[in-house]
């Protein structure tokens, strides 16, 4: 097949600008034509490079007083803005050139000019302020005087002409070398040479559509659930908007938090099954804590209830049989609606003997220069580091050294059981400044040596986007230093982040000499794999792809609602599909899910689907009459297995009152209540900040780590900010 590389469609494809049909067409061409794949790959390289280049531009901001003028204007209602207080100089760019022209000496005259420019433009402005920006001022198209033919004849501007040609050529050659490097990295990634496991994941790279256009599986379930939202809740329209706008442009606040719509009640006669993946993340709780500690209420969409519940550890017994996981269930009244029942499903991963794996002494050397600020760099590293910290134990130690303009110890070597200390140090890593890695790497090695664990893993982990500047040390000295330290047992691992990892060869050399490995991290999955699974290789995953499916008994249950896990939902058929991914569990981890259940005979407002015409649900009365309210099925795979195992356990409701439930049950209910109040959930029932505090205070239990106590403090803080509701 002949392809035309001059067709703009290739670039449009790479940038995610094509519609479904056009994209499908391109993908067909990519499958059959090597030339097409090459064109697309070249464009991809160039676009990555450009994107990276722009991130390197010096960041600029408004002056504080300019921001102040804007924020105080924002606080005033629309319409009241024209009455500016007399003394303030309106921020008119028009006045500035006049100022200059008048000169500083003629201060009196300048003052008059300012007065003149004050009144005229503000009059003009009020007339110009039509609702659409097009009408604001007449646009002056760029390139009026220049060719619009897209640069068939490249116009050189005066600065380019005046540049030393030899110098220019040399630099261009360097850039070409960098592109070459980038291409190699990609090829390695595709061939899976960087990480053996990576090969399966990224097998047929050219055919994978641009990230923005890959379907987001989480939404399919949300769409289903939206249909069951009670009439009158603002859910459906908002959700539709959010889904419809799921396009690849920087949408307002999209970066921050995806829209979460609470799971609604589902009638058992409509759908007796709830299917979801486990979620061992805890980020949302830490995030909420961060907001509250800054005296701010967290944005509603940042509140993910399952991550709040799973932040806390619960005392589920470790499995004793051959299964790596064990499941526990408990039922009692829902504290926010005594007519409803609350079902807790808890899963515990097998405790692997900590003594069996060597302790780790890890020193992160983190590049916090300005270029690390983009989401796929420092923020992703931070998330991955937290996942890793999750797996550490008492015998392990973590320290963090940062480098940018200056280097410093950000976190002294800290025992792995002080997770809150480590996590808050990770949270406070911020980017800014330029890179100077030389002093940083010395400091990191010093820290590692000072905390050396004999017989353990001693490792410096350098995380950078490739702008590794050896600073005071020259490269030869640096490599000798690393070689020497490697002999002493402190190893170096290098993690490359971001799009264009220019200093690739330097980094690889460093890792090579440092007896370590070098990984290029482009996605959260990769980060998880490298930092969690490989770097702490002996910290075991004990089960992978853990899925839960709950079947409700219509003889006992009218309706049910899964609390949280909104973005973890699976299609029912995915439960038995071993090809569908789900969450993994590590040794000793616990996962908790709560269902709010409306017993048969208790009514609940659900906007009903009309009675079906042709269907009749036949109840197996014999089986349904056994008193079980639901049946839990769990599927998991062994860490190295491809076939899932099934576990099953029925649940009987013994009409336990809430106050008679276990401590852990009541505490988890308090956390869920708090989440619902923060989210202003339609399902929060009688939950208030006061009721949350009351329950949590009585269900602190042993609370060795003090997390539950901290929780009560947080709720108090939230109450002070938000009120009791």
């Amino acid at each position, binding site marked *: 097949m002949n392809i035309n*590389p001059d*067709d*703009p469609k290739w*670039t*449009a494809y790479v*940038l995610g*600008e094509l519609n479904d049909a056009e994209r499908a067409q391109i993908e067909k061409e990519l499958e059959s034509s090597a030339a097409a794949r090459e064109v697309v790959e070249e*464009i991809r390289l*160039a*676009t990555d*490079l*450009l994107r990276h*280049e722009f991130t390197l*531009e*010096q*960041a600029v*901001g*408004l002056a504080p007083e*300019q*921001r102040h003028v*804007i*924020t105080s*204007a*924002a606080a*005033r*209602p*629309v319409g009241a*803005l024209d009455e500016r207080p007399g003394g303030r100089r309106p921020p*008119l*760019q028009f006045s*500035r*050139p006049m100022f200059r022209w008048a000169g500083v000496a003629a201060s009196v005259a300048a003052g008059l000019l300012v007065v003149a420019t004050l009144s005229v433009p503000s009059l003009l402005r009020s007339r110009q*302020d039509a*609702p659409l*920006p097009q009408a*604001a*001022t007449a*646009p*002056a198209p*760029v*390139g009026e005087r*220049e060719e619009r033919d*897209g*640069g068939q004849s*490249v116009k050189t*501007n005066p*600065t*380019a002409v005046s540049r030393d040609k030899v110098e220019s050529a040399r630099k261009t*050659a*360097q*850039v*070409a*070398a960098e*592109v*070459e490097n980038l291409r190699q990295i990609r090829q390695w990634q595709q061939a899976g040479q960087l990480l053996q496991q990576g090969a399966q994941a990224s097998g047929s790279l050219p055919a994978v559509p641009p990230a923005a256009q890959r379907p987001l599986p989480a939404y399919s379930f949300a769409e289903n659930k939206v249909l069951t939202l009670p009439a009158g809740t603002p859910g459906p329209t908002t959700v539709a908007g959010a889904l419809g706008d799921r*396009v690849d442009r*920087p949408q*307002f*606040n999209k*970066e921050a938090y995806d829209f979460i719509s609470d799971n609604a009640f589902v009638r058992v006669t409509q759908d007796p099954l709830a299917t979801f993946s486990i979620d061992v993340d805890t980020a949302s709780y830490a995030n909420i804590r961060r907001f509250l500690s800054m005296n701010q209420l967290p944005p509603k969409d940042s509140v993910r209830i399952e991550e709040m519940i799973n932040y806390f550890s619960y005392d589920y017994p470790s499995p004793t049989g051959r299964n790596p996981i064990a499941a526990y269930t408990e039922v009692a009244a829902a504290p926010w609606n005594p007519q409803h029942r609350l079902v807790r499903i808890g899963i515990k991963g097998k405790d692997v003997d900590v003594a069996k794996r060597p302790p780790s002494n890890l020193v992160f050397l983190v590049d916090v220069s300005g270029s690390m600020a983009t989401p796929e760099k420092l923020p992703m590293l931070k998330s991955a580091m937290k996942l890793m910290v999750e797996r550490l134990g008492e015998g392990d130690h973590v320290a963090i050294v940062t480098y940018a303009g200056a280097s410093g110890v950000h976190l002294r070597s800290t025992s792995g059981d002080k997770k809150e200390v480590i996590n808050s140090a990770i949270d406070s890593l911020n980017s800014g400044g330029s890179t100077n890695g030389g002093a940083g790497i010395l400091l990191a090695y010093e820290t590692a040596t000072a905390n050396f664990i004999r017989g353990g893993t001693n490792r410096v982990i350098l995380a950078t986007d490739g702008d590794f500047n050896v600073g005071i040390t020259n490269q030869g000295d640096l490599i000798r230093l690393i070689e020497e330290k490697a002999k002493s047992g402190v190893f170096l691992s290098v993690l490359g982040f971001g799009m264009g990892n220019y200093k690739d060869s330097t980094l690889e050399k460093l890792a090579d000499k440092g007896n370590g490995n070098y990984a290029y991290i482009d996605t959260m999955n990769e980060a998880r794999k490298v930092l969690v699974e490989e770097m702490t290789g002996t910290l075991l995953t004990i089960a992978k792809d853990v899925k839960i499916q709950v079947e409700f008994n219509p003889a006992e249950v009218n309706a049910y609602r899964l609390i949280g896990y909104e973005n973890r939902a699976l299609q029912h058929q995915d439960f038995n599909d071993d090809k569908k991914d789900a969450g993994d569990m590590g040794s000793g981890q616990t996962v908790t899910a709560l269902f709010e259940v409306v017993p048969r005979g208790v009514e609940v407002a659900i906007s009903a689907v009309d009675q079906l015409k042709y269907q009749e649900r036949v109840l197996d009365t014999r089986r349904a009459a056994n008193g079980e309210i639901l049946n839990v099925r769990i599927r998991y795979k062994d860490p190295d297995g491809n076939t899932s195992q099934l576990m099953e356990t029925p649940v009987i409701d013994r009409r336990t009152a809430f106050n008679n439930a276990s401590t852990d049950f009541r505490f988890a209910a308090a956390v869920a209540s708090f989440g619902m109040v923060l989210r202003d959930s339609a399902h929060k029932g009688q939950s208030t900040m006061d009721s949350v505090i009351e329950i949590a205070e009585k269900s602190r239990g042993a609370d060795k780590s003090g997390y539950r106590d901290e929780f009560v403090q947080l709720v108090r803080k939230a109450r002070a900010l938000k009120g009791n509701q």
Partner: protein
Amino acid sequence: MEDATKSTWIVAALDQYEGHLLRYAAWIVGDVERAREVVQETFLRLCKEQPARVESHLAQWLFTVCRNLAFDVRKKENRMSPLKDPETIPITYDRPGASLEHEQTMSQVLRLMDTLPKNQREVLRLKFQSDLSYKEISEITKLSVTNVGFLIHTAIKTLRKELLAESAKRRIQ
């Protein structure tokens, strides 16, 4: 919308777009200080809008207003100092020595980009600095979507060709 909510909305918009708009405006007017005034004025105009009317296309709205204001400033500046070609006004930074520093650290690719026609440079900037869609860029620059796609494709092709040519030359030497 409540005033408090609107105020949060403006601040969030400011946080998200301030840097992007400033760099874009600075590129047009050639001076960070004036770019700041342009961007401040852009946000003051946003304050006067009903959020409901702008929300759905906020980025596009901000960039369009910012662009129009910036071109007004540049036109005026030209009248004030007619001997100066706007294309050659160097971007100046407010820290002493920063301009030189910038000159030295400015990437080779960005330098190479300077050789492209101005309309190509603008769409590249909007696409890769601010991650706007073809559609948004088309609305902002008043070029057709097809034209935007063509300009970006051509610009990328030119950059790629030059890089490869240099690389080949190097191998022969």
